[in-house]
């Protein structure tokens, strides 16, 4: 959507008032400065913000929000911009409120086992800060070296260890939030019991549409006494999935259960992330067990037996930290390895009931092949959370069209299997028009009631999550910005 006529003068006035709040160095407004803020990790959805503002404290965020409201301009919170669903993209000429300068760990309380942090604290840095106390922050998305806690809260981020530890929502106890009105409110409690409605639970995962988190009190968990990582080599994905089912049925709850498919193995082994995996393997299963040493030792043997029973041709147990890292390279290097095949990488995020994984994966591969795409799979098998990766070039309009067509088919396949369209990346602009696959008008209307209670004017991250219905995403790569065209 292009800016309204006469917007330029008012935009200059808004930028002046933003500079007055955060200082000249805290506002970016030149086109070349704004370029990097046009998209997040989902590179084919773009929108140019009218400005980017970098506040340093809560009061500045509140003042920025009030200034935007006074100017009638919407705003979008942004952390590190590592999101994968377009959630941090500025639509309708919104001002981006980037929280990276609010990056202090305010408190680590080993007695209460909580940390109080500003939203711009990098996920991995929080665990580093907690480590001397024998504690860690459990959510560990693949982007944890860059992504921020504020972004994790907005997206309810997961990661490979959610099977045992849950997602971000299980670890957020209290929030300070700048409401879309500019008012500041503190929600939740340090002990975890909500006071009234569980507004913290409602805000986590709301994709920055209910306000801007300016402080989070999060739970820290003890660093496990023992960690063991196993790598199982399987002839095919079906037998690897069978091993996962066997492990779960045995009552074991590993910290992670990850599968890498043959296509990904090939890509990884051809890249700098090479982990020494056999190229003829059909699938690799990574199992991480953690907890008290007395328990983990026995569990390693049980998992080894269950994997062999399911058809593993080889099961290795990491002998040391270096080997553990090598095993994880096969999993964590997947995105990088696929990324080197083409300029753009599209990571899907649907979830299916775990028992449906083999048949859904076969369908997903078939869909990718039929559309002539470079598609491979890594997935959180324990959660049933798929990550089909498609390497592509968004400058190639035909390939872009095929990527989107395949994506829609993948989502439909997963929903038909009893699943959902996003496990941890969010809806954003990417999947908003597929919300109807899961939810009817009354369901969406209930969600709108929540939105409207917080943000009646729809000024906070507008244009996300809810279906645009009459609109479709225009993927013409020549179009500057994130454009929408109305269907006839």
């Amino acid at each position, binding site marked *: 959507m292009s800016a309204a006529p006469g917007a330029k003068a008012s935009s200059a006035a808004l930028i002046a008032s933003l500079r007055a709040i955060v200082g000249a160095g805290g506002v970016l407004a030149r086109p070349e400065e704004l370029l990097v803020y046009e998209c997040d990790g989902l590179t084919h959805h773009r929108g140019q913000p009218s400005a980017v503002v970098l506040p340093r404290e809560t009061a500045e965020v509140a003042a920025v929000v009030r200034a935007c409201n006074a100017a009638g301009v919407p705003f979008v919170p942004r952390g590190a911009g590592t999101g994968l669903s377009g959630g941090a993209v500025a639509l309708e000429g919104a001002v981006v409120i980037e929280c990276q300068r609010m990056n202090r760990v305010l408190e680590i309380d080993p007695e209460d086992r909580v940390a109080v942090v500003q939203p711009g604290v990098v996920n991995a840095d929080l665990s580093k800060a907690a480590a001397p106390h024998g504690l860690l922050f459990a959510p560990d998305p693949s982007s944890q070296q860059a992504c921020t806690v504020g972004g994790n809260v907005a997206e309810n981020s997961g990661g490979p260890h959610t099977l045992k530890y849950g997602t971000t929502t299980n670890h957020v106890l209290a929030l300070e939030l700048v409401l879309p009105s500019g008012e500041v*409110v503190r929600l939740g409690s*340090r002990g975890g019991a909500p006071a009234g409605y569980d*507004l913290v639970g409602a805000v986590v995962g709301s994709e920055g549409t209910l306000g801007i988190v300016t402080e989070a009190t999060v739970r820290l968990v003890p660093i496990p006494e023992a960690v063991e990582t196993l790598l199982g080599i399987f002839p095919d994905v079906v037998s690897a999935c069978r091993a996962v*089912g066997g492990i779960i049925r045995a009552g074991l709850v590993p910290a992670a259960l990850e599968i890498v498919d043959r296509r990904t193995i090939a890509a990884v082994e051809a890249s700098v992330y090479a982990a020494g995996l056999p190229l003829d393997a059909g699938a690799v299963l990574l199992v991480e067990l953690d907890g008290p040493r007395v328990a983990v030792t026995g569990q390693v043997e049980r998992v080894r037996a269950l994997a062999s029973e399911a058809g593993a041709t080889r099961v290795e147990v990491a002998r040391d930290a270096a080997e553990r890292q090598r095993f994880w390279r096969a999993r964590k290097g997947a995105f990088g390895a696929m990324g080197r095949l083409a300029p753009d990488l599209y990571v899907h995020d649907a979830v299916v009931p775990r*028992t449906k994984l083999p048949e859904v994966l076969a369908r997903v591969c078939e869909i990718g092949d039929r559309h002539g795409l470079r598609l491979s799979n890594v997935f959180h098998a324990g959660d049933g959370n798929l990550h089909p990766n498609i390497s592509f070039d968004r400058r190639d309009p035909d390939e872009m069209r095929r990527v989107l067509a395949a994506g829609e088919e993948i989502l439909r396949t997963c929903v038909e299997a009893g699943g*959902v369209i996003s496990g941890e990346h969010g809806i954003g602009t990417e999947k908003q028009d597929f919300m109807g696959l899961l939810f009817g008008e009354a369901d969406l209307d*209930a969600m709108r009631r929540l939105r409207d*209670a917080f943000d009646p004017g729809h000024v906070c991250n507008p244009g996300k999550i809810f279906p645009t219905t009459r609109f479709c995403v225009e993927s013409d790569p020549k179009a500057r910005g994130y454009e929408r065209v109305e269907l006839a």
Partner: protein
Amino acid sequence: MIPQAALARLREAVGAEGLLEHAPLELEGARPELTLAPADGPALGRALGALSELGLAALVRGAGTQLALGNPPRRADLVLSTARLRGIEVLDAEEGVARVRAGTPLSELREAAAACGWEPPLDPLRPEATLGGVLAAGTPGPRGLGFGRPRDAVLGLDTALASGERTRCGGRVVKNVTGYDLAKLYVGSLGTLAVIEAAWLRLRPRPEETRLLVASLASKGVAAGTEAARLPSARIVAVANALLAPRLDPAAPAGHPLALIELAGDASVVAADARELASRLGAASGAPDTLERLREGLSDLPGEAALRARLDVRPSRLAACAAALVGAPLLLQPGLASVHVWLPLGEDPQAAGGPGAADAVARAFDRLAEAARAGGGRFVVEAAPLRAKLGRDVFGEAPEGLALMQALKQRFDPQGVLNPGRFVGGI
């Protein structure tokens, strides 16, 4: 009295078997003479639609085990019962998930899940408690240390809004960020935003080993309890002070606090933790009825002359909170950062309304507020005679965010059909 025309409209919504006229019930000051018990989701939707249309207010009820919780309803023309929305629709032993109707007693789910190696991570205080009731109240039972809060067990919810529209959120898979997490709002809302019709739940593997231990503690009750709650297999840690201890275990040495600890999980871990507790606290195996007594205590109705309250505090300030309540029977749950207390409301219940009784109630609420401050948290009066509730908020002082909560109520239930007045701040 509900006019005949309205009755006919309600009968049409739920069918003749779903409409029960009865003698007035005494429910928190309301005297409803009618219970609506829809047999399925569509009937629940029709019932709510009819209530909205007729401008009537309902007191929503499962098995009624937590009816004491909440402020007295501003209005309750009838009872809306979920009792007939009963049954386990799906119990998927491969996935470890279940879809269960709201009126199903949790004991039924527990039994069915156990038969295939799973357990629901919900721990109601009474066996007849229904899934819907446990989720609406949202408070964890003693096993909350191991299970987490009820919110954590829910994967998806089917709800009927006050308008009668039936909606759903979440799904059946264990990881899901598709749309707003409305289930978090509904769980713990005491039925004031929507009526839960059914839920998809996450189950947990049944523990390989479970052990119940009791330990009589000398001076350092709270500290010992806090340490016990950090053992990896600790699922319940409850510490009764010397005044409450005989209630949990009549055979325990008099005059000392008593810890009740349940360990569950991997057999080797349970054994190691039990050894640790034996050497550290002298803990020994407890009789199973100790656990029953704990649950009874936490759900009792203290009668006309006392109130029962829970304080949710900062974990590290549990002892400070308890110190502010010295002289009263106390139960501390370090893993949940909560303190349960029983406070007297005047010697003579017959004098209710007299100046002395009113003073006793005010004193009890003042003590709770003071103890909550000492603990850096809040209190909620979980059970009290009506006279103690009138003119007060059983949830204590208004929380920050109350304006947002009122806005939510306004948008979900503008007419005040669902439990009006029961929740925080009179929502």
